[in-house]
């Protein structure tokens, strides 16, 4: 080690220059060497350098023993650095942790209060359960009768102990009772915190402290009326942190107890009305007050006050306050909708805020505030929003609007209008079932067909170009050829054309030409359809009429089933040479395509074609049984999956997972968790139990429901947690990629 050791500033300067990695490695090596030789003066410098290196993200665990050595040194400066290093580098998982206990114990009994303070702070960060139990007596003593600053630290340390080992609360309850009578604000702050923590963890302690509500109320009251205090006031609000802490405690104490809530009503009202909100500080206190009012059993007048405060927040110019208000209102609206209707206009105004995160919350809130009475105006506003919002927000907005329209539509015409508008504006970001629902609605609203047809035609025409032609086939041809059409759109247009061929005999040649063009298209789906339709023209022309005739009306319950055949439809052109009957319905948005996949099967006998089509569909949907899968085996335990595809729903796969043992003994605490890729969804039902018995007992079974609308390949990641009879709990993570193909196709 030739050159003298660097000081911390030199190291920092070096690091800020280039070549950080080398320098840091060299320095680490030097520090390690210095630690081994035990050079006393350089100890602190080395440790501070090590802490800086640790801050940068390099491993620094070799400094732990050095920390412990410095801790034990009699010099305050070294002790300080030692404790700092311990707080940053050590934690419960390290072995060196246990060696701390003795040092801390000695320091707690040290005559100098600063040292005691250091030890308390360290215990508060790092104390393990065992250490807490050992040292609780010392801490209690310090909390009871030491000097004021140390009492605060002792109380803070007690908070940590109570978190780690809730049983220790019993020891601190009498201490807290005494401390509540103190006047020093800093001490009160710590005490209130300790009481809050204890009450959250132990219901019996909670009951005990309900008696203290008057005292807490008194503290809050004193803060309100005391006016300006040089030390603690911030921007004219006296000790806001203590106020917030007291309000939080009142919240915990008041929940579930009528009389406690009653005792605090007056003070809450006073705080709510007197705190000024020109700065963030006052708003913070008010926010906490509102949270408390809504959580306890407060008087109705008080609740209205809370909602009004939130409404006032919404008008504030500070965006933080607006977003916080929106979040709380969202929580409130689930409980009490009517009170919030007054603020509807403000919420809608928030939709136009420059901040996108506020948009999202305002949208959720607006959707929650919709009722039958205000649905028309709200929908107008939300449609306006949908038009201008960024693409990321379109799906939730669209699905929310559609859902609301479903629930509150005053009449069918309005409903269909709204759905059309949403579809036009949101485009491809609507949920899948929106389209089929629209079709259902259209078919059901027979008397509105002419109106609907005109709207749909208009929508389609505007969408692709400014074409003014009156010919529907030409329009569809443009759709097919347009670069903007997506493949599904093309497929639908192709099918619509086919259906038109029966209704418009004059244009058959044109339609045939268009369809045959797609016989050599790159897209497989389109090619297949085009070839089949061509065949329909050529060989089975006589069948074409019956194949493409109008399908029966779909009822709402049947939508779940696989046999949904979208109603066949036809577009009425705005010119008057309509040969078709006026009762047939337009179907641009033919979801599942018209004829089934195999029109080449001849109808054969005298049974009408339509019936055999439905038979065909039923055949297709019953699947052969899928073989079960042995997922995992090990540790005397075995996990199998059995599959089932219910014919009613083609996208659903039911997996029955069964866990059994191959060797005698019982595995306990068995827990299965599953995750699937984003395109799929999985839902786990409750298992039959949590322990797997020996080979002669009934295996543990659990149902998983996997929903796979896009028929994506099924992969799953499983996590198993169990405790074998030997004793040590085990966790296994598995990835399963080899599901049988029939499970997801």
């Amino acid at each position, binding site marked *: 080690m030739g050159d003298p050791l660097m000081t*911390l*500033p030199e190291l*920092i300067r070096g690091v800020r220059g280039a070549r950080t990695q080398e320098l840091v490695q060299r320095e680490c090596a030097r520090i390690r060497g210095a630690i081994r030789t035990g050079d006393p003066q350089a100890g602190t410098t080395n440790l*501070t350098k090590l*802490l*800086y290196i640790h*801050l*940068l*993200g390099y491993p620094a665990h070799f400094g732990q023993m050095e920390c412990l050595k410095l801790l034990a040194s009699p010099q*305050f*400066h070294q002790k*300080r*650095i030692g404790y*700092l290093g311990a*707080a*940053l580098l050590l*934690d*419960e*998982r390290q072995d060196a942790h246990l060696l701390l206990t003795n040092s801390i114990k000695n320091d707690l009994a040290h005559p100098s209060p*600063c040292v005691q*303070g250091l030890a308390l*702070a360290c215990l*508060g*960060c790092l104390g393990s359960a065992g250490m807490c139990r050992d040292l609780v007596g010392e801490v209690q003593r310090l909390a009871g009768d030491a000097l004021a*600053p140390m009492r*605060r*630290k002792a109380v*803070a*340390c007690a*908070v*940590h102990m109570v978190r780690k080992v809730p049983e220790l609360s019993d020891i601190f309850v009498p201490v807290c009772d005494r401390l509540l009578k103190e006047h020093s604000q*800093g001490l009160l*702050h710590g005490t209130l*915190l300790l009481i809050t923590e204890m009450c959250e963890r132990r219901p019996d302690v909670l009951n005990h402290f309900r008696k203290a509500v008057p005292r807490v109320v008194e503290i809050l009251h004193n803060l309100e009326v005391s006016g300006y205090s040089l*030390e*603690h006031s*911030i921007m004219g609000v006296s*000790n*806001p*942190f203590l106020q*917030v*802490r007291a309000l*939080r405690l009142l919240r915990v104490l008041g929940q579930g107890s009528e009389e406690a809530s009653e005792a605090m009503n007056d003070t809450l009202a006073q705080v709510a009305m007197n705190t000024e909100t020109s700065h*963030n*500080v006052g708003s*913070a206190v008010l*926010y*906490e007050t509102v*949270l408390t009012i809504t959580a306890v059993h407060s008087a109705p007048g008080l609740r209205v006050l809370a909602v009004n405060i939130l409404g006032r927040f919404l008008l504030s110019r500070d*965006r*933080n*306050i*607006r*977003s*916080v208000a929106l979040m709380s209102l969202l929580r409130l609206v689930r409980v009490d909708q009517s009170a919030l209707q007054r603020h509807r206009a403000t919420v809608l105004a928030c939709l136009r805020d*420059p*901040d*996108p*995160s*506020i948009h999202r919350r305002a949208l959720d809130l607006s959707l929650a505030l919709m009722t039958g009475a205000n649905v028309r105006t709200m929908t107008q506003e939300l449609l306006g929003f949908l038009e201008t919002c960024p693409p990321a927000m379109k799906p939730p907005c669209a699905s929310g609007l559609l859902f609301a329209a479903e629930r509150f539509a005053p009449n069918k015409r309005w409903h269909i209008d709204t759905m059309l508008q949403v579809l036009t504006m949101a485009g491809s970001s609507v949920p899948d079932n929106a389209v089929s629902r629209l079709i259902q609605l259209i078919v059901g609203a027979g008397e509105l067909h002419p109106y609907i047809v005109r709207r749909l035609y208009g929508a389609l025409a505007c969408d692709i170009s400014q074409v003014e032609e009156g010919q529907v086939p030409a329009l569809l041809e443009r759709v097919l050829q347009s670069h903007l059409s997506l493949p599904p759109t093309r497929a639908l247009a192709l099918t619509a054309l086919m259906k038109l061929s029966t209704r418009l005999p004059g244009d058959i040649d044109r339609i045939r030409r268009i369809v045959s063009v797609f016989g050599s298209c790159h897209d497989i789906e389109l090619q297949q359809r085009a070839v089949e339709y061509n065949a329909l023209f050529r060989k089975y022309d006589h069948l074409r009429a019956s194949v493409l005739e109008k399908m029966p009306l779909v009822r709402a319950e049947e939508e779940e089933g696989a046999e949904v055949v979208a109603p066949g439809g036809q577009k009425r052109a705005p010119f008057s040479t309509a040969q078709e009957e006026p009762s047939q319905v337009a179907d641009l948005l033919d979801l599942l395509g018209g004829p089934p996949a195999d029109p080449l099967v001849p109808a054969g006998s005298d049974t009408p074609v339509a019936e055999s089509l439905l038979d065909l569909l039923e055949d297709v949907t019953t699947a052969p049984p899928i073989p079960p899968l042995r997922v995992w085996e090990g540790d005397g335990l075995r996990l199998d999956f059995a599959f089932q595809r219910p014919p009613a729903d083609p996208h659903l796969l039911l997996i029955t997972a069964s866990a059994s043992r191959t060797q005698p003994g019982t595995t306990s605490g068995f827990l299965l968790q599953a995750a699937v890729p984003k395109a799929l969804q999985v839902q786990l039902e409750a298992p039959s139990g949590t322990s797997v018995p020996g080979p002669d007992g009934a295996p543990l079974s659990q149902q998983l429901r996997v929903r796979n609308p896009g028929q994506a390949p099924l992969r799953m990641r499983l996590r198993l947690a169990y405790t074998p009879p030997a004793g040590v709990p085990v966790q296994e993570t598995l990835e399963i990629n080899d599901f049988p193909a029939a499970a997801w196709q």
Partner: protein
Amino acid sequence: MIKFFLMVNKQGQTRLSRYYEHVEIHKRTMLEAEVIKNCLSRSKEQCSFIEYKDFKLVYRQYAALFIVVGISETENEMAVYELIHNFVEVLDRYFSRVSELDIMFNLDRVHIILDEMVLNGCIGETNKNRILAPLFVLDKVAES
């Protein structure tokens, strides 16, 4: 409760980090990088509270330095926002017009100040004089 307290500059270099819940070393760097990316991508009109994974972030920008505090769901965000400002004011008083370099070269002192203000994940002392008192004592001892 407060989960962590970070001071990161615009280039993504961490100037101060304090975790009140155990987080592995390599996860810390990832967390810090992601957090700073989130904060840098916010514009001026957006609010200072971000929802990130299962907790909330409260951030405040002071010149080129971001102070980011991660808090649990139940904590009052606006109080923590005030706490950040209080912390910066204390630093300002101690270092007389604090700058990033001051923080870098006096990291242990900044840690002492932070330890007085945030005890174990909860807000502790908030009075500036009382926070700085032990530090002045330490300075006097170190000089002599």
